[in-house]
């Protein structure tokens, strides 16, 4: 077995020598070394191992470069739904009788495909404004009775949450997964001697997933959407704001998907999605903890080496967000404090400007930053402010915003906010501000490395937008960015014609 293996060191050494003060209590050794052992399996799956000895635990995670950006209208949210499906088991996990289970599953699919045909006919009727066809509705109810009977039968041989039960009974904590625009990550923390358990279960579920309990789980995801988006004060407003921001790019739809799409997924859709995207060259396994890297490497080879590449690769993401040439605005009302926010398009997280933009946003942030004192304390227009740059794989979002003080005029607050942005575009930032932002960004990177999961998150983020080695380039850019770079970025990215403005008023306020 041919394996590419490298050992490298993430170093923040230079960046931590910030000032020359020499006090006696704290350590003066500021060099941080974080050794990453990298292995690339023959099938393209990357393995990263970081050894740390805080506790006899290991954070195990598998990062797939698969997210909502890979979906299309009609199948929005499928990446997230697929993530849920991965907890439903395989022919070993989740059932006491795999053969019988497969038979029932096939029959369920058959029944639900018929239901789907009726649903499509319903949609067609509603397009014409026609009432539902009673014969079809009766047929649908009959089919759902068949479906219920099949589900009851399947329950007799199913082991609900089998995967979780095994992990937890071995001391696993925090078992979960998250889906985002560019990636899906699966993770659990285990006792340090049980890495093999992760390798077994994790490779098994991506080797031969069974889309069991598909339709109850569709209901679970609908509940998740109701919980996170619909029934919260501003969930729907934020969703609309996000959709306004992206005109062409597939980032524009919500990760959880539109409700009407969630209602129509089929197991065949999930299967096709799996065969298109879940090919091992799109994955990175990351282990952090009290472990032996050589042993983990060997386990990964044995277990994850089983995953086969799907031929042909997958379609690249080619859609580019067109340059925005005019301000867009969203006016909304909600049972929530008023808000004013402005967003601009930014570059990918691996772009050479990404560090400078992080620094620029740090200069706006915090109580000693550009926004807080004028907006909250002096003009009393806001109760809080925020600024951030969220960099994704194919682009980024630059955000400044404020929470309106009760009774404050949103138009005045927006003007004051934009004046502060324009001031930086015109006059730039001071050296002291730049150094302060650099200190903050660097120290926050170090703080992320305090926990096993924090280290994995950091590496996983860079593996999502590029490779973990881009971390080094990012840190170098943090150190070398000049005040002139920041001014140039402000001019280039924070253009008036590129603004996307949200004005949210409290419902019932004048």
């Amino acid at each position: 077995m041919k394996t590419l293996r490298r050992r490298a060191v993430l170093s923040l050494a230079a960046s931590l020598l910030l000032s020359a003060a020499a006090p006696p209590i704290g350590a003066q050794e500021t060099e941080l070394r974080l050794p990453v052992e990298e292995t690339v399996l023959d099938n393209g799956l990357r393995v990263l191992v970081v050894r740390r000895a805080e506790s006899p635990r290991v954070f195990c995670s598998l990062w797939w470069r698969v997210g909502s950006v890979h979906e299309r209208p009609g199948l929005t949210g499928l990446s997230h739904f697929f993530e849920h499906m991965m907890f439903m088991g395989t022919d070993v996990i989740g059932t006491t009788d795999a053969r019988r289970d497969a038979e029932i599953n096939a029959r369920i699919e058959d029944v639900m495909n018929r239901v789907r045909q009726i649903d499509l006919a319903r949609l067609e009727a509603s397009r014409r404004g026609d009432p539902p066809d009673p014969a079809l509705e009766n047929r649908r109810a009959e089919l759902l009775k068949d479906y219920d009977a099949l589900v009851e039968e399947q329950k007799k041989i199913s082991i609900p949450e089998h995967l979780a039960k095994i992990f937890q009974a071995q001391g696993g904590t925090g078992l979960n997964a998250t889906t985002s625009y560019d990636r899906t990550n699966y993770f659990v923390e285990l006792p340090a001697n049980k890495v093999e358990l992760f390798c077994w279960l994790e490779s098994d579920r991506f080797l031969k997933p069974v889309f069991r309990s598909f339709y109850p789980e569709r209901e679970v995801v609908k509940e998740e959407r109701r919980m996170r988006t619909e029934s919260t004060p501003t969930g729907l407003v934020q969703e609309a704001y996000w959709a306004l921001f992206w005109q062409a790019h597939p980032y524009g739809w919500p990760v959880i998907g539109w409700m009407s799409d969630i209602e129509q997924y089929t197991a065949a859709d999930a299967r096709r999605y799996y065969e298109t995207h879940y090919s091992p060259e799109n994955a990175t396994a990351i282990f952090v903890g009290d472990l032996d890297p050589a042993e983990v490497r060997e386990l990964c080879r044995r277990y994850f080496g089983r995953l086969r590449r799907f031929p042909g690769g997958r379609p690249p993401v080619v859609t580019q967000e067109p340059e925005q040439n005019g301000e867009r605005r969203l006016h909304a009302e909600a049972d929530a404090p008023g808000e004013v926010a402005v967003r601009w398009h930014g570059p990918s997280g691996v772009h050479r400007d990404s560090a400078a933009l992080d620094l620029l946003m740090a200069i706006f942030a915090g109580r000693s930053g550009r926004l807080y004192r004028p907006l909250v304390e002096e003009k009393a227009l806001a109760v809080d402010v925020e600024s951030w740059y969220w960099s994704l794989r194919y682009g980024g979002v630059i955000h400044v915003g404020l929470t309106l003080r009760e009774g404050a005029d949103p138009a005045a607050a927006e003007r004051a906010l934009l004046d502060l942005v324009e001031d930086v575009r015109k006059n730039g930032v001071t050296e002291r501000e730049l150094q302060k932002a650099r200190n903050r960004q660097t120290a926050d990177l170090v703080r992320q490395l305090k926990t096993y999961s924090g280290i994995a998150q950091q590496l996983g983020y860079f593996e999502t937008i590029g490779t973990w080695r881009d971390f080094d380039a990012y840190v170098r850019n943090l150190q070398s960015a000049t005040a002139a770079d920041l001014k140039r970025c402000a001019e280039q990215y924070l253009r008036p014609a590129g603004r996307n403005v949200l004005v949210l008023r409290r419902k019932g306020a004048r």
Partner: protein
Amino acid sequence: MRALARAALLLAACGPAAGQEIPDHPDRLVFKPLRFEVPDPASMRVELPGGTVGYFIEDFSLPVVDLRVYFPGGSFHEPRGKEGLADLTAGLLRTGGTESRSPEALDEELDFLAADLEIEIADVYGSVSLSILAKDLDRGLEILFDILRRPAFRADKLQVLKAQALDALRARNDSTAAIETRELNLLVYGPEHPINRLETKASIEAITREDVAAFHRQLAHPSRFVVAAAGAFRKDAFAAAFARATRDWPWEAAPLSSVPPPAHAPTPGVYRFHKEGRHITQGRVTAAHLGVDVHHPDVQAIRVMSYILGAGGFSSRLMQRVRTQEGLAYDVGSDFRPGFTYPLPFRISFQSKNESVAVAAKLCLAEVTRLREEGVSEKELADAVRFYLDAFPGLFFATRFRTVTTYAQAELLKFPKDYYATYREKIARLTTEDVRRAAREHLRPERFVWVVVGNVPAIERGDPSRPAALSDLGPVFDVPLPDPLTLERPK
């Protein structure tokens, strides 16, 4: 349980040798033994002159230091009519400057050092946390004690904080989640318990700079500090610096009252809170009654019982039934954590679409009843016990800073002395009978107060294909939402 474990071992022994092939089931995996000794608190405990107790661990793996100074006293000790004082005191300590540093200079200095200095005053205790690069630790400590000893409490900053606090009050009825938490506490503990002395517009406006200063003096005294610290420092130098910083404290320690036991007997039933809004497609439900505190002898039996019922994440019974099998909720579970200084509630919570709220509630209730009547299986017990034994280091000692905060909190809140030392053995010796008894004694569905928040008419319409009504759970009461600023309810 023992027999089962032995069978599993035998199976494992028959399986393939580790490191060669892939066994056909994960139950056949064999793991090297892993021993974990509970970290010895005495090895990190330091008593400083003046009464401060410290838990310190040196750790040079990263060039940072994390520390947290805990002190007893919190919102439960606010004078009547001054509700909200604890939060304003914490906020003004942080933002109000010191005798020698303006608020602006303080923020600028901390931000330049990339230090995080946070002050929080909760219900019965508070803390000051500092995270700082090790090379700046001296300055960080100097600033921290400048704030604690010589705060300026600038009046203009108090006005800003009050405006922020009033706007936070206005948001009180915005989310169904916020309504649920507040109303549950009111129903379970009754309006007289200190947990329910809630701030109003009047109480916030009544708070003066002098109130803040007096409250600060009452709470902040080194004779009651417990400090947790881990990071790149030398222990003895750190202890000495701390002793210097707390020497000649400018005021005497004032006594703190103790927390009265809850004396309220709630009326069981279903309390409906209607929240207006077409977008509210889901109802939030919690059923609760008072539980126990950490000194109760059944704590570990209750813990394991609760894990199996609904606190054990995906593997819990409530999750399997309500979510995985029925698709009625995304999030469902129970919580039966012991309170530190007063009993916390046992509770079951979920969110479900309006039409299935009552169905899901009845399923939850059925699981409680089943647990009381049937108890748990040997396998469920064995899995839960092994979870706690194996996850133990991750639960309380995941990092060095977590280790010192675990012990500092135990000292501050006067946990039983052997709480962590005997944690695992008390769980390891539980039997199914212990768990069943804990369920019968401590799960009391007849006492449940059900809080239901959402679109009440839509919830009551229900799902014709699965008939169920909230009234199946007990007598139903409608409670109007209070005015967010005065907390007065319309008649």
